[in-house]
């Protein structure tokens, strides 16, 4: 029996490794998560860098000393604007330039509305952040002054401000970075499905489609052994995908300034082993479900369609967890997919829950795998499955 399972296992892997296209997809999928991770963190790090002081070149600084003092007090770096500033703004090398007109001082002293010009190019997205900040500072100055003038005339400034809008920006770099980090367990779980997908399609549905299932079943081999060999081959592809994904994460994490973003995440050796212990048992169940579903399909393509839909399954709890991490409860670890995503998340955050959740998650996956394999084996006795070809 062991020999037979080994024979089927080796044949399936050899066959699969010769299918370069399927193998390429199997390799690309697990790398998707780390790539998203790398891109997102670099983006966020660049947003973070935008919290540098506001650089604002000014034309006619001397004409508005109190405005300049105000701007500098609130962190703006003022400089003399170059003569060709309009050209530069259009070209994008300058974000915005403040122009203080000659009659500013005169209007200001007379108590008229004095105008300043903020020269910008609104079609440039990159500059938007700088423009908004400059705009906000200038408005604040105007309001402060207006208030002072009203007070001086014995009017309570609040009268002139019936409604005040205060914006609360919840998207701090920490929060967005944490939500990307929370995607890691989801992508690891996805890898357990993505890795074995094409092998599972080929080994059951493909076998039916080619008409090679009937001759295969003519060998004096228990159907359970055939299913077991094919399943083990699928499982090893899934495990390979998880390993690949994890290694890619660990390489990426070194290039990402996690601490700068104020994040607490562990990606060292023990953490990696913990994540493997959390996620790998799921490969047993994921591959078994894929085999079972694939047996119903009459063709490789049909199986691929079903199995792609099946991948939505881990995405649902994964997305929920990534967007709003919840307090884990013991029963949750016994739910395949959900349990693994929770566990991997806890390991990544450096929390140790003890061995029980790990055992619970592994056991539930093993049971699910066993049930699916039994169903698959039983399907192989059905005449409709053996002979039913499209």
């Amino acid at each position, binding site marked *: 029996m062991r020999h037979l399972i080994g024979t089927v296992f080796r044949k399936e892997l050899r066959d699969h490794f010769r299918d370069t296209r399927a193998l390429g997809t199997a390799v690309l999928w697990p790398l998707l998560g780390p790539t998203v991770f790398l891109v997102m963190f670099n983006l966020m790090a660049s947003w973070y860098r935008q919290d540098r002081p506001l650089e604002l070149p000014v034309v006619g600084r001397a004409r508005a000393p109190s405005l300049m003092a105000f701007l500098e007090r609130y962190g703006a770096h003022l400089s003399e604007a170059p003569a060709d500033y309009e050209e530069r703004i259009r070209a994008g090398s300058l974000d915005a330039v403040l122009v203080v007109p000659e009659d500013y001082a005169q209007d200001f002293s007379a108590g008229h509305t004095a105008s300043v010009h903020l020269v910008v190019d609104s079609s440039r997205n990159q500059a938007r952040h700088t423009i908004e900040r400059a705009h906000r500072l200038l408005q604040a100055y105007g309001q402060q002054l207006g208030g002072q003038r009203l007070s001086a005339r014995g009017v309570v400034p609040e009268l002139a401000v019936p409604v005040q809008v205060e914006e609360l920006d919840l998207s701090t770099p920490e929060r967005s970075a944490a939500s990307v980090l929370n995607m890691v367990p989801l992508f690891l779980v996805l890898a357990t499905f993505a890795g074995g997908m094409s092998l599972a399609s080929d080994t059951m549905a493909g076998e039916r489609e080619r008409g090679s299932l009937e001759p295969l079943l003519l*060998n004096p081999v228990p159907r359970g052994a055939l299913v077991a060999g094919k399943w083990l081959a699928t499982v090893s592809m899934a495990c390979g995908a998880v390993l690949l994904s994890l290694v890619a994460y660990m390489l990426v994490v070194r290039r990402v300034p996690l601490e700068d973003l104020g994040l607490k995440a562990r990606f060292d050796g023990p953490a990696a082993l913990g994540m493997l212990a959390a996620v790998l048992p799921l490969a047993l169940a994921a591959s078994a479900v894929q085999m079972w579903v694939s047996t119903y399909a009459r063709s490789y393509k049909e199986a691929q369609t079903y199995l792609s839909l099946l991948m939505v399954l881990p995405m649902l709890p994964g997305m929920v967890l990534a967007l709003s991490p919840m307090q884990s409860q013991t029963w949750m670890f016994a739910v395949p997919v959900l349990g693994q995503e929770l566990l991997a998340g806890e390991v990544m955050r450096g929390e140790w829950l003890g061995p029980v959740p790990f055992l619970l998650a592994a056991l539930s996956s093993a049971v699910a795998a066993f049930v699916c394999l039994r169903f698959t084996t039983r399907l192989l006795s059905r005449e409709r499955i053996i002979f039913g070809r499209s």
Partner: protein
Amino acid sequence: MIEAIHLHKRFGTVTAVEDVSFSAADGVITGLLGPNGAGKTTTMRMLYTLVRPDGGTARVDGVDVVRDPEAARRALGVLPDARGLYPRLTAREHARYYGELHGLRGAALDARVAELVELLDMKDIADRRAEGFSQGERVKVALARALVHGPRNVLLDEPTNGLDVMSTRAVRALLRRLKAQGCCVVFSSHVMQEVAALCDRIVVVARGRVVADGTADALRAHTGKDSLEEAFVSIIGSEQGLME
């Protein structure tokens, strides 16, 4: 030695095989002849254990196919209706895979596969991947894997279907060779000429029943017709399916 004993099979309300009994002796080529839809393929599938009869049974070298299908499969070499190959495996790897599934290993397996490559004249395709094989080459590979364990009983479902003259001749030569080795060979066909050219014994199946059983001469004598073709028409009661 293959014996079919009152085989009966229904699919829903359709009766595919009503009552088929015959026995095929060792060292003899037995042809299962009948028009399309007569129940030949279903009968074959019951003999090679992939369809479970609703009534009756069959024995392969005395092993009951219903009670011990695995042992029956061990004693059988089968070329089924479906001859799918793995496009990314070579011809030799196909034979090796099935040999290993039959428990062959090491030098014995190597020797047996080499023997089959020789026997089926597949030297030029032995180490090529099956992708792009011609119909004749595919049948050779399917035969090689069916015979890799050296079975004493060989079942072939329409073995020459879709083959050109050269491949057909090669298959016929192989069947004669198996017969000379003392194997029990049963093959099904709806082509009268095919059966007439090869078979020592002909079992005619129509509408799920055996309607005649004997040598070509006996069938002619029984019906009083001079040609085998006339004899078949008379036995089956129609000309359906006998012309090709």
